[in-house]
């Protein structure tokens, strides 16, 4: 009986410490901010500082935050993308195994492209409507409009 109590205490303390450290780290690292749409969350770790500064001066500042272009529509899809990107961003920033001039992934570029097309549907249709081959060629909006969100 005594042994049981002792092992229960050890297990409790160990689990409690793990949860406690995890919770503290989460708060200290402002983990909750990543649940929001606040663009400042994206510069918590400073890697996106150039992008953030660029966005502050861009034409889209008044109408779109990071999440509007870099997460897909729909609550589940949005948080799934946040979780996925969040994991990899933390992984690379913690290990330091990344190049200084970061590049968007193929998947990220597709999400952003859909975001352009969602808000600017009318003009996209006006361009691609009479030219169905343009749709097949998948001309990317940012091929020409690279700086609308941020320069880098």
């Amino acid at each position: 009986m005594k042994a049981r109590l002792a092992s229960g205490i050890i297990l409790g303390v160990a689990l409690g410490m793990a949860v406690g450290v995890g919770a503290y780290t989460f708060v200290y690292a402002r983990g909750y901010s990543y649940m929001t749409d606040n663009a400042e969350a994206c510069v918590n770790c400073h890697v996106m500082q150039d992008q953030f500064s660029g966005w502050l001066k861009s034409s889209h500042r008044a109408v779109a935050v990071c999440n509007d272009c870099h997460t897909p529509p729909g609550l589940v899809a949005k948080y799934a993308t946040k979780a996925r990107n969040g994991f990899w961003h933390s992984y690379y920033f913690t290990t330091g195994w990344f190049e200084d001039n970061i590049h968007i992934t193929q998947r990220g570029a597709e999400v952003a492209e859909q975001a352009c097309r969602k808000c600017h549907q009318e003009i996209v249709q006006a361009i691609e409507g009479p030219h169905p081959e343009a749709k097949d060629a998948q001309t990317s909006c940012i091929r020409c409009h690279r700086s609308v969100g941020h320069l880098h």
Partner: protein
Amino acid sequence: MSEEKQNEKSGGKRRSLLFFGLVGLAVGATVLGLALLVNIFQRKQEARNPFFRVVELTDDTVDPSVWGKNFPLQYDDYLKTTDQVRTRYGGSEAEPRTPTQADPRSIVAQSRLEEDPRLKTMWAGYAFSKDFREERGHAYMLDDQTFTERQQVAKQPGTCINCHASAYVAYKQLGGGDIIKGFEALNKMPYFEARKIVTHPVACIDCHDSQTMQLRVTRPAFIEGIRALKASQGIQNYDVNKQATRQEMRAFVCGQCHDEYHFSGPEKRLVYPWAKGLLVENILAFYDEQKFKDWEHAQTGAPVLKAQHPEFEMWNQGIHARSGVVCADCHMPYKREGALKISDHHVRSPLLNINRACQTCHKWSEDELKARVETIQLRTHNLRNLAMDALIDLINDIKAARDAGRTDSAVVTAQDFQRRAQFYVDFIESENSTGFHAPQEAARILGESINFSRKGQVALRGGIQSASEQAK
């Protein structure tokens, strides 16, 4: 043993396994959690841009290792300029050699004279035809200058020290606090006497103010050269350390040494020939006006010039300069150390650092960017070979004419064309970007060089009377 007891025992085993497993997991999670916490803490500290003043720096602290105590990240990178890495058209290879008493170096860079023997003909009669090697990194500038065979075949002045050592404190010592006076004293000394008063290759203090870390120009030759250039553009009494912008300074501190120069007069003053402008023809016109020559060509008797690494001049003619992109943007690009952003003090070819150097602005793959640069360099290299062949043909023709006893004015005209053709091709040959700093300008200069060689040959055949008239 009854079955029940056995069951109980294996159940206990399972329970204790589960217990230890759970405790192990919890311990593992705590360790990982703490490691992450410490990492985040460290990043947050870095982001505050901490600067620890471990030592007091003064305007007389030459030794870069002392500065390195306050700025360890920059100093670590600065030390890396000892690397010897090739790019396709530049960079140095480490070549072993047997040290001698006169030259204790056990490793040198490859000889450019052996790679292209035409250089020996071009520089015939000048010390460069004896020893000319691919430049190595900043770390070697003082040793490679001290031990080059050129020192043994010609008496060099102390002027060389201006750009082969950390000279700022030496100027102050020689000039009693006045760097211009110190500069004048240094130029007049024999090389090996001047060599004794310097210890380090280019160091922190040559570009940075010790108190504010702001960039500043410490080389009198650049201060005077840029003042003359600005005066030619209608800006009188230009003071580079007061009037240049921060971004301009990120080019000017490099331009302190990476440019065309000559030693003026018997006092061997280091002068950058910019009073008429930075273009190759402006510089040649400046030398013509001064009636300056570096030496008399051994095979033709022509009064010729040696062009010296005009990177600053060539960069000024290119699209990057036009767009406000300066030396440090590509050769010392920003990098991250954790959450800290610093400029990379490992000064080197951008081709060895494409992500940081090019991809900040150019969103193409590294392979694509490298291919673009090498296309420009291949074209320049091929055109430079044609210009070099044309020059050698002219030199051979003048030599043959003189050997045949000709002394007429056509020979003088041809010699003058040789001076022009040679200076133009050398301007690109000695410039350390194989055309990249200003591709079209490099091609133009090489094209004109070929034309000068052609005209020199025509002159020998009685076709052209005066080179000076023609060149205008």
